[in-house]
Every structure is written in structure tokens, then in C-alpha cells.
């Protein structure tokens, strides 16, 4: 590593929606992650820098940021993989309101999980026997494909349709709905299919697949949304959708 490459030139977003980038010089280290860079700036250069993280091991989904133009989980993203030479640009996630610096307000993101009825609704009591779900059944396989979502918001930030149509539920909420629609224990299927139907729901997706490309957990929200489109269309043809799905 030559002397120039020993320093990273990092542009970091400071302020709110009308803020701007500020430049910092950070020593480059072996196996350094983008989160390490942000932490270095806050601890050694400017303690007023706001950012969010918790687990540092890719489980909690709280440290996602826009790194050199693409949304990523910063704790598992090595600088060596994403730096443009010695340049790194770190901004908050797009498609979400900025609270300050690198912190976005995740409220709209999780409100859409609620709107998509992203909560399990069971029909059994403690006196009932365990539900038996064959691991190789189609429904269980569908659920397995999407269940590892950590709610980081990377897919939501990468989605063009969310940018064009702010009321669109987005890939994460729809992926969550798909895992529940495939849960044979769940009793809220009709209301959920109604909640994800139509112009602001799964049918707004253009299948551009940026959510799938960017998902750090290799989930394909696009596949989940395609599944929902088929099920919801079948329900609509049979007249099974609720007219006012409680939005």
C-alpha cells in the first residue's frame, strides 16, 4: 500500500434534507468496514456526527447508508470492496426523511409494514397442538426464501417505484406480507391480500429488481411481489378482496 492509499478521502452528508457533504481524511486499514470509517470520524474527528448502528455483525439492520451512491449495510461492507480509489461518499438512505447526518427516520418504512398487515395473526390457543408444517411444502419453502429479512431498508432505498410513488408499500413490506400469506397457520390472509392489492401495493412494482440486487441477505423481494401479484389477481377474479382493506 503506497502512502497516498493510506488515507481515505471521505465525503459524509451533514445536516438534514438541505445539508451537504463535508470531507474528512481517515486512515485506511486492513479489513476496514464502512461503519469503521464512520465510527472513526465520530470518535476521532467530529463527535457531532450522527449515525445509527447496534450489532455490527449484520443482524440488527440499523446501519444501512448510501455508500458511493448505492444503499448498503455498512457493518458488513468492506471499504476495499466499494471505495473508488481512495474516495468514499457516505450519505443517508434515500426515500426516507433525514433526521440528521446519516440517520433517517424509518417511520414511513415500518408504517408500510403495518399497512401491508405484516403481523402474524394466529388462530390457535395454548391448548391446541403444535401446527405441523412440512419443511419441504411449497408454502414453507416460499416463506423460507424471504424470512431472513432484517428490516434494514436497503431495498426500500434502492426502489425507484418508491421514489416515484411515495405511497407504494415497497419491497420489504411486500416481502413480509408474502412470508405471512404462505404461513399456513396465519388466519388474516384475505385482509392481507386486500391490503397489498392495487396501485399502491404489489401491482405498482415494475420488476426492475434493484431491491433484489441490493438486498444484503440475498432475498428476492421481486419474487415475493410476483407471487403476491398472482395470488391477489386470483382473489380479485373470485371476488375475495375486501373493498376497503382498512388503509
Amino acid at each position, binding site marked *: 500500500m503506497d502512502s497516498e492509499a493510506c488515507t481515505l478521502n471521505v465525503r459524509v452528508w451533514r445536516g438534514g434534507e438541505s445539508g451537504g457533504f463535508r470531507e474528512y481524511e481517515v486512515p485506511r486499514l486492513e479489513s476496514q468496514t464502512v461503519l469503521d470509517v464512520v465510527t472513526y470520524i465520530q470518535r476521532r474527528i467530529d463527535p457531532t456526527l450522527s449515525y445509527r448502528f447496534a450489532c455490527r455483525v449484520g443482524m440488527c439492520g440499523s446501519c444501512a447508508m448510501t455508500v458511493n451512491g448505492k444503499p448498503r449495510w455498512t457493518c458488513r461492507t468492506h471499504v476495499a470492496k466499494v471505495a473508488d480509489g481512495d474516495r468514499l461518499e457516505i450519505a443517508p438512505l434515500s426515500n426516507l426523511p433525514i433526521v440528521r447526518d446519516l440517520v433517517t427516520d424509518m417511520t414511513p418504512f415500518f408504517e408500510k409494514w403495518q399497512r401491508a398487515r405484516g403481523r402474524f395473526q394466529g388462530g390457535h390457543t395454548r391448548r391446541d397442538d403444535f401446527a405441523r408444517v412440512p419443511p419441504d411444502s411449497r408454502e414453507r419453502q416460499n416463506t423460507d426464501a424471504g424470512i431472513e429479512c432484517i428490516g434494514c431498508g436497503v431495498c426500500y432505498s434502492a426502489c425507484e417505484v418508491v421514489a*416515484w410513488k411515495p405511497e407504494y408499500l415497497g419491497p420489504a413490506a411486500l416481502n413480509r406480507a408474502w412470508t405471512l400469506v404462505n404461513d399456513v397457520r396465519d388466519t388474516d390472509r384475505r385482509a392481507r391480500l386486500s391490503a397489498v392489492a392495487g396501485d399502491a401495493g404489489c*401491482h405498482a412494482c415494475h420488476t426492475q429488481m434493484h431491491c433484489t440486487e441490493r438486498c444484503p441477505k440475498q432475498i428476492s423481494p421481486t419474487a415475493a411481489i410476483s407471487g403476491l401479484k398472482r395470488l391477489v389477481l386470483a382473489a380479485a377474479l373470485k371476488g375475495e378482496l375486501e373493498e376497503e382493506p382498512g388503509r
Partner: protein
Amino acid sequence: MSPRAQVLLWGAQRASAAVLAICVAVHLATVIYAVRNGLSAAEILGRTRGNAPWLAFYLVFVASVAVHAPIGLRAILAEWTRWRGRSLDLAMLLVGGLLALWGARAVWAVFA
């Protein structure tokens, strides 16, 4: 518009796209085949006048366009502008009606 109606519109657009895929392929193949000896109005009219299967095919083509285009335009306008709701739906209904009318008129003009 109810969520059910929105979903049925989406279904109609997909179904019309499937029909259009066939119609466009047949149309292009016919055009390429038909112009091999040059193209004249007399030759076209000689092929289309009183040709009932030709009339049926192009009426299906026009109907598919009249269904497909306004639904897609509705989605594009909702994404690119702030235009939403009933006025947009009615405007797109008008676009579909005009496409059907003009298309059917053009088909009839070379059939009759």
C-alpha cells in the same frame, strides 16, 4: 377506484399485452412479406377489402391497444406527475375510447 378494480385493470393490461405480443408479431411478419414486391395503395386495398379474417384480426389488435395503452399511461402519469384519482381514471377512459374509435375507423376504411 377500489383495490379490486385496480387489480383487475392490472390483469387486463397483462392479458392485453399477451394478445398484443401475438398481434404485433403477425403484423410485422405480414408487412415484411407483403412489401417484397413493392408497396402501393392498390395492392394493400386489394388484400384488405372485403377480407373478413383480416378485419377480425385488426379489430382484436385495436381492442387490445385500446385496453393496454390507457392503463399503462395511467400508471406512468401517476408516477411522473401528481395526477391521481377519478379525473385521471376518466381521462384514461377517454383515451381508451378514442384509441378504439380511431383504430376501428382506420380498419373499417381499408376494409369497406
